């Protein structure tokens, strides 16, 4: 269980201006929950995720995982990055094994384990390729395998499928769901896509910007296991209603901002 209470963070930009990236964020993520986070650009989604990962300090509040306060990166968490963050000089096998290596797992065991994960994400046969020889979708499969290899109980994903094409994205979503159904870990998944948030999440956290706050948490009562096949979840009225509702809310936020922005003298 991840408990976030009263989390706040102010960045001082290079021009000296203060940006309230997060303000009084309270959130509890249940064990084995798939939580998706949605919100306008700049609302602090990445900031919050990096804090959970232990990569970024905060100013106010507390984050605890399983009752223990977060003080830095830990073996219980791993992260999948939007731009993959693969080592260009290392092979697929070494990239997947990277996390295990940092955690001191011996060569033989780590390669064995990495091979398993490579086949889990459907990349068997590509072990000795370098990232530059792979497509975007394949690269993110490597990123996913690397994160799963260390057997985290919490998987943190920052727009992991944002940089791949639509078809690949759908395939990756299905694979992720299948993996999650099997392994049941806690997932915090940031996305820009309402459809993705609803398709994947048990709940959708809707954030608003300036200051970054949680504006609403929308439960998604769709049956599991879900898939995006024809006749799958996407046809159900719940799915349609929730995505429509999220879109409405996001548009409202956008309009509020335009009103604020437009309240000055017009040029």
């Amino acid at each position, binding site marked *: 269980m991840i408990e976030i209470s009263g989390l706040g963070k102010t960045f001082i930009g290079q021009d000296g201006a203060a940006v309230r990236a997060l303000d009084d964020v309270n959130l509890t993520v249940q064990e084995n929950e798939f939580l998706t986070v949605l919100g306008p650009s700049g609302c602090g989604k990445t900031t919050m995720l990096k804090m959970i990962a232990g990569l970024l300090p905060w100013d106010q509040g507390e984050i605890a995982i399983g009752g223990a306060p977060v003080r830095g990166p830990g073996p219980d968490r791993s992260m999948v990055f939007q731009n993959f963050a693969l080592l260009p000089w290392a092979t697929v096998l070494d990239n997947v094994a*990277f996390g295990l290596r940092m955690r001191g797992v011996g060569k033989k065991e780590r390669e064995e384990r990495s091979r398993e994960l490579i086949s889990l994400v459907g990349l068997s046969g590509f072990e000795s390729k370098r990232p530059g020889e792979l497509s975007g979708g394949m690269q993110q499969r490597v990123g996913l395998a690397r994160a799963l290899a*260390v057997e985290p109980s919490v998987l943190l994903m920052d727009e992991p499928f944002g940089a791949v094409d639509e078809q690949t994205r759908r395939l990756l979503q299905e694979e992720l769901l299948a993996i999650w159904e099997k392994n049941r870990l806690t997932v915090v998944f940031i996305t820009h896509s309402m459809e993705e948030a609803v398709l994947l999440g048990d709940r959708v956290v809707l954030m608003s910007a300036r200051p970054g706050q949680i504006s609403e948490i929308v439960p998604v009562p769709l049956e599991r296991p879900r898939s995006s096949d024809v006749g799958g979840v996407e046809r159900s009225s719940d799915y349609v209603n929730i995505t429509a509702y999220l879109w409405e809310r996001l548009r409202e936020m956008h309009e509020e901002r335009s009103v604020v922005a437009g309240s000055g003298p017009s040029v």
Partner: protein
Amino acid sequence: MVTAARRRPAWVRALDSNLTYQIGTFVLFALGWQVYGTVWGGLLVPTFTETVEAFVELVGTREFWDAMFVSNQALVIGFALAVGIGVPVGVVLGRFRTLERYLNVYLNILLVTPMAAIIPLLVMSVGFGLLSRVILVTIFAIVMVIVNVRAGVRQVDPALIQMARSFGASEREIWMRILIPGALPSIMTGIRLGLGRAVTGMVIVELLMVSLALGNLILEYRGMFNGPALYATIAAILIEALVLISLARLLERKVAPWAPNNQKGANQR
């Protein structure tokens, strides 16, 4: 299906390679030289063939190889120093920006100073020995090494460092597994460019400071108005530089084959 590249006969592919073009331009250059040398050459501009003859003769002399040995002593030691000092300094400067603020001035001075101007200073303080030649070669080469290595460390994707930290990497592991490998292509480029400068330094110091070895040969042949021998000596130095740089280029591709600059078909920078 057979691809077009595969169906083409070997000789066509050979014609298409870089080497063919290079040989082609060289032949043109040699022809032009020959014509110029014959028509307008006079005493100090020998023809291409005269130069080749002189070159063959030159490499047969004991004097030449002695000169090569003495000159290259300074080159080898000076270049090794430049790499040995330049790489760590570049890495540290790339990682710690504050330190760089203090040292940038000196680096810029090294970059813009005409090195020839330093030579008298060097001679006055260190004398004419091997030491001052080594120092000059080092100064010549080290700037290229430092600047390239620094740039290399700096362009390592910060997302990779963050990724490593998220998996619990220590600072040491970040250096060993992210920064150094990430900067390796630039480190190799710095070493190659530094090598070129080291050769320059080696010759200049002998021409301007201590009339010795290869530099001395050049001065001597000039004094005797021996055009062919003069040109042959210079050609020997050029050939050495080209061979060394090609070797460095080869090593660069071998060590960092993933770098875009080292991919097959990529042009030399």
